[in-house]
């Protein structure tokens, strides 16, 4: 009877123990915190105590129909207390967890646990009630619970069966061996001492034996556990040991690289996964990118894994601080926002789960784990290991990460300082840009770099560095519209195009692709909130730049924008200081610098160079008549003509007033003549086209033949210029020609004080008659040519030239009506006209400098046969200059349009001249002149062309 009572007490205590164990089994499903003090065992201790005191059960009665147990009140008290304190708590928290859990797996697991509790709640009380004891109700209940839990383990991974088995074996082994040892010892002692085994001896043996068993278990436990683990886990066991050791020595790991690669390698091998990676935040953006992978091979698909800072995966891990199985990404609605690319990356990387590394509420890193090598699912033990490692290394990881960030930041600052100091080392960006890009190449891939600045609607390539033949070149200007820089400047944001071959948004991309460029980043150069252009960095490699590198470049662009603008401002100021604003040519100061440089350079290398000085003819008169603003405008036009007429290597300068000078490096005097002649002709043509009676005279000099110092060269050119002027202007005069000609009485030409007055007078005459526009200048040209051809001395040529310019000066006294009359002239009109040579002679006769021209002016209407006017001179009695003027005057008149007729063609003019030879003109001179015309002289000097008839007549 006592034995039965004892057995029932044991059964009841075991039942309570089982319920307590069930509670501790359920507890982790609703609360993650570890149990510090297992208070529920109070119920077991109380039950044992009450059992020992005989309160549980109160009695057992064996009858014919079976055993009747009087459980007593205490078992009911303990049962109810357990139910209301522990059971209700478990059910409440499980239900709550089930409601709030977003994880369907967990949801299902909890459902099965609740089912098991419900079965126990029904079957255990049923076995105690009267009539229930007669049937194995409790056993049936336990069997159902076992089935439910087994199904939950198999189908829903309620617990890891392997772990249960392993731990079970370990416990069984330890405690089994201990118990066996105890029994063996007891048996041996019993044999030796031959005592009776009763309750007392048993109690004594237990009191002695339990500590002995515990002690022996303590001794063999670790070794036994190791053996079990090795037998079940295999080589993973050693990795786990190494991992444990790695984590304990974590503080001694010197840098993040060793930390990350060591951790990921040991962890991956410990759980036997195919691959794993550790994602760390990229500086600044907060996006997570892979830093360490296992295996650390190049082809590891996990290398492409990235997660934006706003990715739902990152948000979820941050918020939930628990493992995220990849499967849930396809299931949970909040992952609907995941991008296709992110999803594909996860799938191609074969990520099985993400584990957050969180320290002080901040997501430090993400551990992504691939599938298991054996293709099976991860065990609960694996997951426990991952969670435990993640929580233990998070703080150290964060610390190392920050250290590395600081170091990287320092390096970036040093680099930016270095690059900025390169940029600021010179005001000429072009000069130091190569050095800048060379330094930049040390940290990023770079095959092409340029600084493009926005100038109105154009893009100015300020600096360029390219490893390939670039379609762009420095200083080039391209339309801004539709370029990437336009977008970048407008939005003040950088733009990275990772692979232009795959995708190009702007028309400029075509050029880059032609150059073999794949990745290109455009970075705005912003100064005082205004984008002035972009820094363009490109590489042949696709996807060449990481976010981190782009941020570095952004910082760099931000740093160098101001120095670039300063350099630009300086270069503009410098340019302005060298430029004559009116003409757009370089100014005199720059000329002097350049001349010195050229002299030094050419003397060093023994080369020749030339320069020519030129001066506008009749410019003063133009200025006086039309005013200075028009004069300035004219100078501007002349500046443009000069700039367009000289060669690329030549440089033109405004020397002062209406004088210009040009340096022609590596140019002989003959080649320089061609250039100078082109400039002169171009000015003559364009001025004539605009009805402006301004031409230019040019004096040429060459180094070293005309001088070896600057003053000498300029003086020589100046002298040649005055020869050109003196001989009628609109011509190019070589310095060598001056030397070859005999010296005059004065030794050289001096600038006549009244010469400008001559031009003014000539202009006044021309102004009177629109149809005689430029007439005196043309006559001057023809007459000078004829005079030179027949070999007159320079003084005579000069006299002819002046007389030619002033031959019609007497028309000042003729009425405008007569001069512009279209019909036939009356005898009175003729008289007025015939008076003009004498009137002209009277005017000129009052000017001492022009007295020598009187003959030409007075007699230019005399005829060879003596029928001319005003004095009827004949043959060679007519002064030579007058005979020359007569032919030039007639030629000019016939080749010009008149109110009463059109201009005659050249053939007709020649015929007329021949017909007049010996009657009107000196026959010898006519022949010479015809020879000149036939040589194309008239065409060369582009004279003899009439202005359009509808043109007004602002003639000079």
């Amino acid at each position, binding site marked *: 009877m006592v034995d039965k009572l004892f057995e029932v007490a044991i059964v009841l205590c075991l039942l309570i123990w089982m319920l307590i164990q069930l509670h501790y089994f359920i507890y982790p499903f609703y609360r993650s915190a570890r149990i510090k003090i297992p208070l529920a065992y109070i119920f077991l201790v109380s039950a044992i105590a009450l059992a020992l005191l005989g309160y549980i059960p109160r009695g057992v009665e064996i009858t014919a129909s079976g055993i009747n147990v009087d459980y007593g009140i205490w078992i009911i008290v303990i049962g109810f207390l357990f139910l209301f304190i522990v059971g209700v708590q478990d059910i409440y928290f499980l239900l709550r967890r089930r409601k709030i859990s977003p994880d369907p797996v967990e949801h299902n697991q909890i459902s099965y646990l609740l089912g098991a509790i419900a079965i126990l709640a029904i079957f255990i009380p049923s076995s105690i009630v009267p009539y229930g004891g007669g049937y194995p109700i409790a056993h049936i209940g336990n069997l159902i619970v076992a089935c439910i839990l087994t199904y939950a383990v198999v189908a829903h991974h309620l617990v890891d069966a392997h772990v249960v088995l392993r731990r079970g074996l370990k416990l069984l082994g330890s405690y089994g061996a201990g118990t066996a040892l105890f029994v063996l010892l007891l048996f041996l002692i019993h044999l030796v001492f031959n005592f009776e085994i009763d309750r007392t001896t048993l109690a004594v043996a237990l009191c002695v034996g339990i500590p002995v068993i515990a002690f022996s278990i303590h001794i063999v436990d670790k070794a036994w556990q190791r053996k079990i683990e090795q037998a079940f886990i295999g080589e993973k066991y050693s990795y786990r040991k190494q991992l444990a050791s790695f984590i304990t020595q974590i503080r001694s790991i010197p840098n993040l690289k060793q930390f990350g690669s060591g951790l990921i390698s040991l962890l991956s091998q410990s759980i036997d996964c195919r691959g794993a990676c550790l994602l760390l935040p990229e500086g600044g953006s907060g996006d997570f990118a892979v830093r360490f992978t296992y295996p650390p091979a190049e082809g590891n698909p996990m290398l492409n894994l990235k997660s934006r800072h706003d990715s739902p995966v990152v948000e979820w891990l941050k918020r939930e601080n628990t493992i995220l199985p990849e499967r849930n990404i396809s299931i949970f609605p909040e992952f609907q926002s995941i991008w296709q690319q992110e999803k594909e990356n996860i799938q191609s990387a074969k990520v099985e789960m993400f584990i957050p590394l969180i320290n002080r509420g901040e997501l430090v890193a993400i551990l992504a784990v691939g599938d298991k090598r054996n293709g099976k699912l991860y065990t609960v033990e694996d997951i426990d290991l991952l969670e435990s490692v993640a929580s233990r290394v998070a703080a150290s990881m964060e610390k190392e990460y920050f250290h590395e960030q600081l170091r990287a930041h320092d390096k970036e600052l040093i680099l930016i300082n270095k690059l900025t100091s390169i940029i600021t080392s010179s005001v000429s960006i072009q000069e130091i840009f190569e050095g800048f890009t060379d330094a930049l190449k040390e940290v990023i891939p770079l095959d092409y770099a340029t600084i493009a600045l926005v100038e109105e609607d154009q893009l100015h390539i300020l600096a360029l560095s390219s490893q390939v033949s670039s379609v762009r070149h420095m200083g080039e200007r391209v339309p801004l519209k539709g370029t990437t820089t336009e977008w970048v400047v407008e939005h003040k944001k950088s733009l990275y195009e990772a692979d232009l071959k795959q995708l190009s*948004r702007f028309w400029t991309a075509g050029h880059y692709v032609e150059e073999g460029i794949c990745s290109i980043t455009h970075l705005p150069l912003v100064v005082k909130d205004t984008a002035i252009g972009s820094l363009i960095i490109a590489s042949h490699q696709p996807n060449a730049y990481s976010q981190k590198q782009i941020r570095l470049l952004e910082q760099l662009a931000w740093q160098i924008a101001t120095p670039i603008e300063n350099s630009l401002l300086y270069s503009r100021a410098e340019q302005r200081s060298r430029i004559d604003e009116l003409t757009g040519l370089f100014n005199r100061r720059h000329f002097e610098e350049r001349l010195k440089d050229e002299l030094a350079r050419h003397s060093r290398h023994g080369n020749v160079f030339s320069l020519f000085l030129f001066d506008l003819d009749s410019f003063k008169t133009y200025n006086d008549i039309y005013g200075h603003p028009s004069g300035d405008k004219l100078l501007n036009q002349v500046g443009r003509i000069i700039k367009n007429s000289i060669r690329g290597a030549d440089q033109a300068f405004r020397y002062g007033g209406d004088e210009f000078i040009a340096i022609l490096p590596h140019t002989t005097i003959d080649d320089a003549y061609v250039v100078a002649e082109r400039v002169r002709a171009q000015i003559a043509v364009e001025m004539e086209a605009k009805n402006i009676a301004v031409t230019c005279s040019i004096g040429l000099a060459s180094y070293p033949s005309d001088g070896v110092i600057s003053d000498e060269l300029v003086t020589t050119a100046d002298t040649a210029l005055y020869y050109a002027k003196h001989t009628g202007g609109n011509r190019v005069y070589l310095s060598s020609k001056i030397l070859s000609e005999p010296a005059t009485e004065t030794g050289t030409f001096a600038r006549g004080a009244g010469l400008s007055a001559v031009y003014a007078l000539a202009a006044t005459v021309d102004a009177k008659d629109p149809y005689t526009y430029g007439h005196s200048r043309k006559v001057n040209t023809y007459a000078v040519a004829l005079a030179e051809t027949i070999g007159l001395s320079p003084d005579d040529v000069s006299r002819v030239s002046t007389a030619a310019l002033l031959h019609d000066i007497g028309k000042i006294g003729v009425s405008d009506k007569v001069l512009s009359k279209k019909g036939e002239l009356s005898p009175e009109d003729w008289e007025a006209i015939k008076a003009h040579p004498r009137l002209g002679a009277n005017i000129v006769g009052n000017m001492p400098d022009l007295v020598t021209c009187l003959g030409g002016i007075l007699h230019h209407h005399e005829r060879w046969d003596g029928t001319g006017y005003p004095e009827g001179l004949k043959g060679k009695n007519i002064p030579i200059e007058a005979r020359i003027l007569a032919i030039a005057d007639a030629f000019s008149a016939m080749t010009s349009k008149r109110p009463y007729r059109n201009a005659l063609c050249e053939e007709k003019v020649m015929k007329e001249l021949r017909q007049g030879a010996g009657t009107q003109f000196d026959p010898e001179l006519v022949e010479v002149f015809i020879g000149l015309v036939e040589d194309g002289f008239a065409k060369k000097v582009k004279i003899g062309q009439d202005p359009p008839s509808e043109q007004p007549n602002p003639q000079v």
Partner: protein
Amino acid sequence: MLRPIDLLRQGKKEELWQMCCGFIDLSLEQFMVIQERLLLEQLELLKNCEMGRRIMCGAMPETVEEFREQVPLTTYADYLPELVEKREDVLPAKPAMWVHTIGRAGEYNFKWIPLPQRFLYELEKVTGGVGLLASCNPQGNSLVKEHLKILSTMGSRYYGSGVVAHSMQQALGYDFLPSNAEGMAFQEKIETGFREALCRGLDAFGGLPSILVYIGEMFKQGAINIDTRFLLSHPTASARLIKGLIKSKLARRPMLPKDLWSIKVVVGGGADSAIFQKRVEELWGKRPLELYGGTEGGVYATQAWDYEGMTFISNLNFFEFIPEREQFKWQLDHSYQPKTVLLDEVKAGESYEIVITNFHGGVLVRHRIGDIVKITSLRNEKLGIDIPQMTFERRADDLIDIASLGRLTERVIWEAIENTGIPYVDYVARKEVIDNKPVLHLYLELRDDYIASEGSMAAEIREQFKKLDGKYRCNFYSLIGDMETMLGLKPVEVTLLPQGAFSNYIAQREAENADLGHLKTPTHQPFGQDAFPAWSFQSCCGSCASRS
């Protein structure tokens, strides 16, 4: 890639619910995060394609705000001719299929819309969710399982509605009845489907509610032929029929479909759904779950198991809403760009024109689909749904839609009246609901002393609509048969106005100092348009008549 059917087959119903119906548990904030993030992904796709750059006028927005500021609102005409020419090279993503609507788009017959693979994948989850919600009992527990039998009443999968049905079938593994409906006419399809349903059972049913009623009425009136030989050779069918007969006799009424089958899922949607819902329930024993969608963007919103307002779907389209006042400004001046609000800015009780931008590589950007919706509440208190609830209110454009079957433009109506040859002064066309049935009501003033009855006029105009269907595909009658008789519809009503009604109305408006543009009432008045209500016109005519 995990699909709903995989979870259904694995018996993981909890996960299936999360995948397909989890959107109803989203907070409004989460909803907006999904919208914003998917829009940003879509913007990247749009920036990288020719059509996207053209539609966005070269803008490259990087935030939702920039997108709404820089990108103009669009209509289908903005996508022409590329979409009707099916130019895949200009699209943001390669389409897996092209679907089209019924209705003209500018110079072209149909609106063709490309659907990329990922869009279809997401649509599958959404339609799976609709199926699950439709199968819920009042407690919200879904009773769905694989191989539910569904009567095939939808269009082909190249129509918007067909895509939704096909997608739902893919998601939940429905079996269509008849199993091979290829090439069958509507009537034949229904009869064959019914025969198979008698043998195999019928669990689900979907389509336009008007068609659901039509089919129910066909059955009720014995218009669906099931011959005796078939019943004799199929004892299951006979047994089911006998069961139905007993039930109907006990209820003392004709046999209805609900006597034969216990339908688990009924899904419906389209204009006038609300009008037909009750009759569907009477005939089929289950109220149809209403969904709001279109060819342009799949499914926009769906009801839950409380059959109240519809909840917006977060992951297929980006939603913007044009407030009525902005829409009115646009109506006065079509060059005006109406401002939009987002879902977290809408107000309960107000109506909005809906604007969508497709996600997942779809092509439509800030597209005005032409629907006015009403926000009934900012959340569903009963079911704890935190997303604003809506109902479809009316069309925003000039379409008059009768039970989703006839889509009549102003031109079609004018041409139908003209073709009758009846001399008239003017008319007003207006959609009205008479005796709980949608009707096109024409108010006609006949010329001089021409005498005609309203009934004959209505009949003549109906005939003309039938003839014009071939030309305009307005689809008023031709789709499935004699809808008028079955549904008891009288889709055209004519009211003859007294002589001088229009001129008197204009005189009255002049006396009220109405401006020139508003002297005459609009000829075409889609349902719900209040700007120039026909009743005022009628009252004016009435007063004119009484004075005369």
